[in-house]
């Protein structure tokens, strides 16, 4: 039976979440191409002062809205499919509406900047503070309020998954938690722990400060709270991609998951290690003693472990699938994978690019080599491989597989769908490698102009002009990739039902199943407690030092941008 017929209510919820996420993707992609063409000096529609409004929109819509709504939908499917039950409707829909109101508030505040920033409720309606919104730059209060609502909404969405698990447990005492639900719950626990930082930043400090209720905030403290959340959030993007790679991709490859226990170990490691690392974004911040940076660096390096293990398990599962399809030899089995299937090809290419992103991430994490690339174009080069491809391309690819199941409609335009992942891949290869090299040449990120009046940049490998051209061409291909995806989705969405779907959510058993994994892995209380202890070790002393001189000292008043 098709998912939509079995769970019509949950399907409707997932459809609503996906629609919001696809609209965010569409707008974000338009902003993306505008930026790629603007900052390379290729083609301009906006003034350079407006560049930052566009960039704020791009960051917020893609990194926060597209991801969070898509993940909410994917997780809803994963929990409901693996526990075989309907999600608690009130909580799940409440979460959806809260997140939507938050998104609209934030989006209106941002877009106001393109329409002359009219004064609304005594504050000018603009929010060109970028998605990191470092104080003391101030946005319209609606921006902070919107951000807070998106986060609170996601907490409630998580409650719906926990509630489903508790209900399932009371009927299935003693059984192992199904892998997909296990992954969802571990991810949400990590999310709860890490969003506390940004929630405190926004609710305790930035909202009252932007409204004028308190006059000062400590820029270093709010920044630290932001990055306490800012690194784990990348795992909140990645872990859903891993969920797809571990649980769905082996089936798409024609095989079975290699090891269920190892997948659980990987997710537990993420829960433990994701949060106490945020200082690695503050390696070059003044006001923070070197020792704290060093602790974050060692934790960060150990965080490589779960990703390296994932690489092994996922590749081993794919190889198993390929051999089932008649694959032979050391590497020639790669030819026996279904490269023409959009869902498979997208996930596999996303995984491949993630490997490259992992390497540039190791450079970022290297405490002293970080000097070379901190805040240069290298950084967007890196995260367009991770969130911009590992997550985004996986999300698009798995939509080709999931959307038919939640709508009951056959995937339309299979030909376009089949080439789309390759276009994204080529576009990203061009844009990202040029961004990395431009970073090495010292070209900063987040800037509207390619040149400065006082000096000019020189390329280390290749000329600066050639890098600009690649960024422009790559960005254009990416935009085409996003547009093709949206066309396929739109046509599928409006198609009539009928005919046999080629996909279903029935999964083959893993080669090594949950019965091989120690029970202690399902002990969430234990893992959460250890995670909290690690955080206290990494963050306790520095936060205590920042708070010792008063929570808003040294203080800064809001500065309108």
């Amino acid at each position, binding site marked *: 039976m098709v998912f939509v017929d079995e769970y019509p209510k949950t399907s409707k919820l997932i459809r609503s979440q996906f629609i919001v996420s696809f609209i965010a993707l569409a707008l974000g992609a338009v902003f993306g191409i505008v930026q790629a063409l603007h900052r390379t000096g290729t083609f301009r529609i906006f003034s350079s002062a407006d560049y930052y409004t566009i960039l704020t929109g791009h960051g917020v819509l893609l990194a926060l809205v597209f991801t969070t709504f898509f993940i909410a939908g994917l997780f809803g499917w994963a929990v409901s499919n693996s526990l075989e039950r309907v999600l608690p409707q009130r909580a799940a829909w409440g979460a959806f509406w809260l997140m939507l109101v938050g998104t609209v508030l934030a989006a209106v505040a941002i877009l106001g900047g393109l329409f002359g920033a009219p004064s609304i409720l005594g504050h000018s309606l603009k929010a060109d503070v970028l998605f990191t919104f470092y104080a*003391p730059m101030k946005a319209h209060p609606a921006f902070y309020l919107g951000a807070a609502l998106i986060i609170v909404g996601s907490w409630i969405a998580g409650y719906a998954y926990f509630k489903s698990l508790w209900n399932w447990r009371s009927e299935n005492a003693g059984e192992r938690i199904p892998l997909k639900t296990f992954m969802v719950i571990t991810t949400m626990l990590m999310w709860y722990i890490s969003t506390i930082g940004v929630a405190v930043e926004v609710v305790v400090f930035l909202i009252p400060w932007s409204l004028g209720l308190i006059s000062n905030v400590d820029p*270093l403290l709010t920044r630290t709270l932001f990055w306490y959340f800012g690194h784990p959030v990348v795992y909140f993007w990645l872990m859903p991609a891993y969920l797809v790679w571990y649980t769905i991709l082996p089936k798409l490859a024609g095989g079975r998951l290699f090891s269920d226990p190892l997948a659980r170990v990987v997710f537990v490691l993420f829960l433990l290690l994701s949060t106490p690392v945020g200082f690695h974004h503050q*390696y070059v*911040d003044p006001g*923070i003693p070197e020792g704290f940076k060093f602790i974050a660096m060692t934790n960060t390096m150990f965080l490589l472990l779960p990703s390296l293990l994932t690489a*092994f*398990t996922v590749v081993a599962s794919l190889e198993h699938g390929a051999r089932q399809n008649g694959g032979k030899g050391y590497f020639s089995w790669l030819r026996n994978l279904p490269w023409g299937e959009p869902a498979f090809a997208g996930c596999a290419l996303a995984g491949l690019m993630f490997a490259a992103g992992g390497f540039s991430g190791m450079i970022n994490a290297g405490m002293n080599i970080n000097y070379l690339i901190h805040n240069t174009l290298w950084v967007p080069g890196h995260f367009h491989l991770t969130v911009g491809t590992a997550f985004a391309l996986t999300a698009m690819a798995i939509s080709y597989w999931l959307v038919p199941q939640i709508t009951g409609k056959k995937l339309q335009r299979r030909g376009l769908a089949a080439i789309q992942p390759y276009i994204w891949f080529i576009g990203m290869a061009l844009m990202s490698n040029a961004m990395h090299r431009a970073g090495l040449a010292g070209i900063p990120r987040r800037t509207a102009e390619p040149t400065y009046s006082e*000096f000019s940049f020189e390329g280390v490998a290749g000329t600066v002009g050639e890098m600009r051209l690649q960024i422009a061409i790559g960005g254009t291909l990416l935009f085409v990739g996003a547009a093709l995806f949206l066309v396929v989705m739109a046509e599928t969405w409006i198609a009539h039902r009928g005919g046999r779907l080629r996909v279903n959510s029935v999964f083959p058993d893993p080669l090594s199943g949950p019965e091989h994994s120690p029970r202690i892995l399902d002990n969430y209380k234990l893992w959460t407690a250890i995670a909290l202890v690690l955080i206290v070790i990494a963050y306790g002393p520095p936060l205590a030092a920042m708070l010792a001189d008063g929570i808003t000292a*040294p203080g800064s008043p809001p500065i309108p*941008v």
Partner: protein
Amino acid sequence: MQVHNFEKVWLGAAILLIVGFIATISYGTVGAGISMVDDSGGQISAQAVQNGNTGTQFDDPGVVQASEDQVVVYVVAQQFQFRPGSGDTPIRVPADTRVTFKVTSADVVHGFSITETNINTMVIPGQVAEVTAVFDETGTYGLVCHEYCGAAHHTMGGSVEVVPKDQYEPQEVSN
């Protein structure tokens, strides 16, 4: 729990790689003495920097000769210039000399990075960033604000001129 032999080998190699990374970085920090930006610069009031009444050298930023072979450069970053550094007041320092940059902000978060060097720090209101370097090559280096600081962020650049030690003349410190 069942762990496949290949998995064990992979796991071992992964841990070795990680420990290796940590070891090289530790060596870089302790052995080669690449020090990080830290809290050594101390705190300062951003409003006082703005108003020029900190009672420190930041009220009159510029290059100060600290000793025979060390200069200290006080720089104020503010929307949208470095004082000194931007426009026609480049930062002028001698080669083969210890140069300590002390940088702070008068308003929002800025960045301070000198192209073709390792000098790269955030400039956070309320904090003084301190970086020390020795330039062994003379010439003009670019200076960039690499953290978005407002609508004209892209104009916030400058330059650093490194002159041969024997031709360097300490300047009158002025704005």
